[in-house]
């Protein structure tokens, strides 16, 4: 691919004590591209995302986002990324609108009421804008978490099982949003356990097994069954 690599991972290793979680991961994600990382529980998918999000330091190897080293230039990396993790990063005693205002202000943005309303409408939370998050379902909290990135417009999205907890409508919205994010030149790295519809947005599939990328292939015309077969072959037989 000719476009620039917004995410570059080379020889990445991460150990926790004696346990080696990642051991020589190599992966590039280019502008306008989405890569889905598949792997069994404990394969290191979340660790990989956390290293790219500057939350965890690698033991060895290189991880860069938009040319900035994740370990050395964390501040510059943070200006480029949006992370949707398992946790929603929302305050239960604030309303949806207040949560958005707080996080946007902290990120140095000055959203107008119209910007905020637009972001909430995009994730279909406009009618719950003034409701406290304490009353929200897990799916609504996740949508609110995603609304932050509608406002912030990062260049790189790091998504840890982004479709989990979403209903069909929200999944469809997320697919469309990710597709338009890619079309705008953004790069997406997401982890998932699903082999179905959730992979539709991915241009490439990478299987993480034994601490390294066991398979990195274009999704192309692969069906869910094909992906499942590849996953079984590469991930479940891994040490």
């Amino acid at each position: 691919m000719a476009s620039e690599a917004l995410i570059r991972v080379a020889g990445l290793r991460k150990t926790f004590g004696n346990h080696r979680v990642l051991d020589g991961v190599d992966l590039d994600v280019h502008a306008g591209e989405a890569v889905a990382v598949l792997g069994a529980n404990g394969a290191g998918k979340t660790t990989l995302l956390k290293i790219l999000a500057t939350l965890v330091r690698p033991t060895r190897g290189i991880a860069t986002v938009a040319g900035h080293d994740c370990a050395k230039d964390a501040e510059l990396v943070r200006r480029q990324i949006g992370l949707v993790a398992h946790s929603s990063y929302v305050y239960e005693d604030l309303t949806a609108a207040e949560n958005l205002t707080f996080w946007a202000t902290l990120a140095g943005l000055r959203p107008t009421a119209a910007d905020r309303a637009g972001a909430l409408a995009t994730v279909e939370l406009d009618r719950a804008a003034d409701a406290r998050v304490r009353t929200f379902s897990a799916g609504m909290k996740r949508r609110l978490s995603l609304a932050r990135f509608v406002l912030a417009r990062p260049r790189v999205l790091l998504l840890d099982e982004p479709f989990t907890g979403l209903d069909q409508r929200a999944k469809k919205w997320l697919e469309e949003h990710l597709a338009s994010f890619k079309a705008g030149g953004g790069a997406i790295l997401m982890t998932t356990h699903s082999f179905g519809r959730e992979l539709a947005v991915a241009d490439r599939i990478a299987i993480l097994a034994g601490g390294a990328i066991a398979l990195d292939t274009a999704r192309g015309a692969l069906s869910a069954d094909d992906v499942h077969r590849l996953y079984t072959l590469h991930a479940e037989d891994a040490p």
Partner: protein
Amino acid sequence: MVWKDLLVERRSKETLNALFFFGLLLLFVFQFALGPDRERLAGTLPGLLWLGFILSGLLGLGRTFVVERENDCWEGLLLAPGDKSAIYVGKLAGNLLLMLVIETILLVLFGFFFNLDLTNVLPALAVVIALGTVALAAVGTLFAAMTAQVRARELLFPVLLLPVEAPVLLATVKATEAVLVGEPLGSVAHWLKLLAAADVVYVAVGVLTFDFVMEG
């Protein structure tokens, strides 16, 4: 940060309610222990007052980052681009406001429980309390962040905080003692200078080191 923390506190009232009832309980204990002997009370009042402030402060300051553990907001703060010292300043301002509110309530209750008229000494007392509270909140906010992700944080927080606060406590109790017997602030200028210096040093250390504390 201040706006968010005060809004969350106004809605949940968790810290304010806990501190109010804790302060009330403390005053009951002091009242039972000392009885109506005014002479004995006069000698112990400055210490009791600051004991009340410190214990309430420990409880309140220790909860500074509890709200950030909800839904892993701590991680969200870490990921926010920009100078992390702004988070420290925001948290410190929120803590200062909360502590000053609680200290005002405690002061009123002290007057009520021990039948004291503090009206004449109130301006001087307010200066001493404000200077002492800034130092307490500055170190407390920093140590609360340091221990926020530690399992034994409830134990570790006072163990770290109290030794560092020792000179501040000494100065505040001595200055309060003098103010309560009607001496002018000028007579305790040396203690006030020490408190002001501690405020400047503790806030500066907090601002300069908070980034390292957060990044772990």
